């Protein structure tokens, strides 16, 4: 670098891959939690395996994500200062609280789900083998299990908060024209929280479905997945038309077109529709691609906002 005669010091990227993966994992955690909790709360024929997968993924994903976040700090050992120094005008400061509480609630919920079959078995005195069938029947909740549904409700709100927070974190940077781009030009309504919320649910649902692979009837979930993919395509079209085309060129173009669009959206959408209509089980390829696409999306958004300024 030659600052005397030249070009100023090369612009360093402040937030790199670690932050992209963290945002991705927080999204997966939130989406998986919503999948499990909403099924638990409203599902008629509750597939226990799906609820279990959706309840176990969030604590693992969010804890790994938070570890990455802490390692990415300039001063990792001072991370606790984030909790004791609050700035209400900082989205990150508010998000710290949402994510911390969500993590705690997700852990509690995972524990309750883990303990759930045991309680069921006691309740109606059947063997563990009959649990899946028993789960369909409503059993009066007793003891700790009485907390399960309230925890699912509170956790769902926090999951919603976590998923949108990952978008607000970036969109709050008002000096960044890419991250803070408004939704359909409506000033004051940022775009990214919508995109990241939909992507979070879609990737979280996909990860849960992979975990519940041998469940018998997942058609409803596969249909939801198709709808989410369609919404995401719509949102990306909105994004593409709202910001300068410079963001979709250069080194990031491949990541966007191949990673986000083709692998993350178009291929899984086509395969999913084919799978549902032909009653083929294509969960692993479809959901695998959705998850990979979600990661590519976070990378793309995090980097694109910092490459072109």
């Amino acid at each position: 670098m030659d600052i005397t005669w030249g070009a100023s010091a090369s612009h360093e990227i402040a937030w790199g891959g670690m932050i992209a993966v963290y945002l991705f994992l927080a999204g997966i955690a939130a989406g998986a939690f919503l999948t499990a909790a909403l099924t638990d709360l409203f599902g008629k024929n509750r597939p226990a395996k799906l609820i279990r997968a959706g309840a176990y993924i969030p604590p693992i994903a969010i804890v790994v994500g938070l570890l990455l976040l802490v390692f990415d700090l300039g001063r990792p050992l001072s991370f606790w200062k984030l909790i004791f120094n609050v700035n209400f005008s900082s989205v990150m400061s508010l998000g710290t609280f949402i994510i911390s509480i969500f993590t705690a609630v997700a852990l509690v919920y995972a524990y309750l789900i883990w303990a759930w079959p045991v309680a069921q078995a006691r309740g109606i005195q059947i063997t563990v083998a009959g649990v899946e069938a028993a789960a369909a029947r409503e059993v009066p909740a007793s003891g700790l299990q009485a907390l399960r549904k309230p925890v699912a409700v509170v956790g769902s709100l926090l999951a919603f908060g976590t998923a949108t927070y990952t978008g607000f974190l970036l969109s709050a940077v008002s000096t960044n024209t890419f991250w803070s781009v408004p939704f359909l030009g409506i000033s004051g309504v940022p775009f990214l929280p919508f995109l990241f919320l939909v992507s979070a649910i879609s990737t979280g649902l996909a990860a849960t479905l992979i975990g519940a692979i041998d469940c018998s009837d997942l058609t409803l979930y596969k249909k939801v997945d198709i709808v989410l993919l369609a919404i995401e395509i719509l949102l990306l079209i909105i994004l593409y038309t709202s910001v300068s085309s410079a963001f979709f060129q250069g080194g990031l173009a491949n990541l966007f077109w191949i990673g986000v669009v083709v692998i993350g959206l178009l291929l899984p959408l086509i395969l999913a529709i084919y799978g549902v209509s032909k009653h083929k089980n294509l969960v692993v390829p479809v959901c695998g691609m959705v998850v990979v696409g979600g990661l590519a999306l976070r990378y793309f958004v995090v980097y694109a906002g910092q490459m072109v300024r």
Partner: protein
Amino acid sequence: MAKHYAMAVVVAKCIGCQACTVACKFQNNVPEGQYRTKTPVVGPKGTFPNVSMYFEKQACQMCQNAPCVEVCPTKASHYNEAGVVLVDVDKCVGCKYCLTACPYDARFINKDTGAADKCTFCWEARVSKGQVPACVSTCVGGALVFGDEKDSNSEIAKLLSKNKGEVRKEEFGTRPSIYYIFEGVK
């Protein structure tokens, strides 16, 4: 009335000697390869007879509506009593949110402390003791003028009343305290 320290850069007087760049490294013990201030060349631009080239001193713009202060989750980035934006190293966790928010690329993570770092107007070592920042006192071309913008008798207030001072990236509404006087340059 509270003071408001500001700096004017008389671009036409800057000869690009980098004395400010070096003085800052001396004064503030800035790690190798990192800079709180630098003065890159802009240009040469255009074709004869309209060729221009000048040097632009770049450092923290001491915004009065600073995005770095707004986003900082721990209030490590703050305004002091004289409108100077500072980083409290002890409170900073090094999250880099401020680096993403600063539109002037003024911040970096100090290699030694892990905390966000940037120009302080030499607040602790000099300005709070009534001196001017190191870059201003060393400036060979006499291009840097520093003082209390609100004191109408100060050199900087007089200079700015006679000349048009422009701020960088005005569109972001950050209200910088560094004014560039481009007279005779572009």
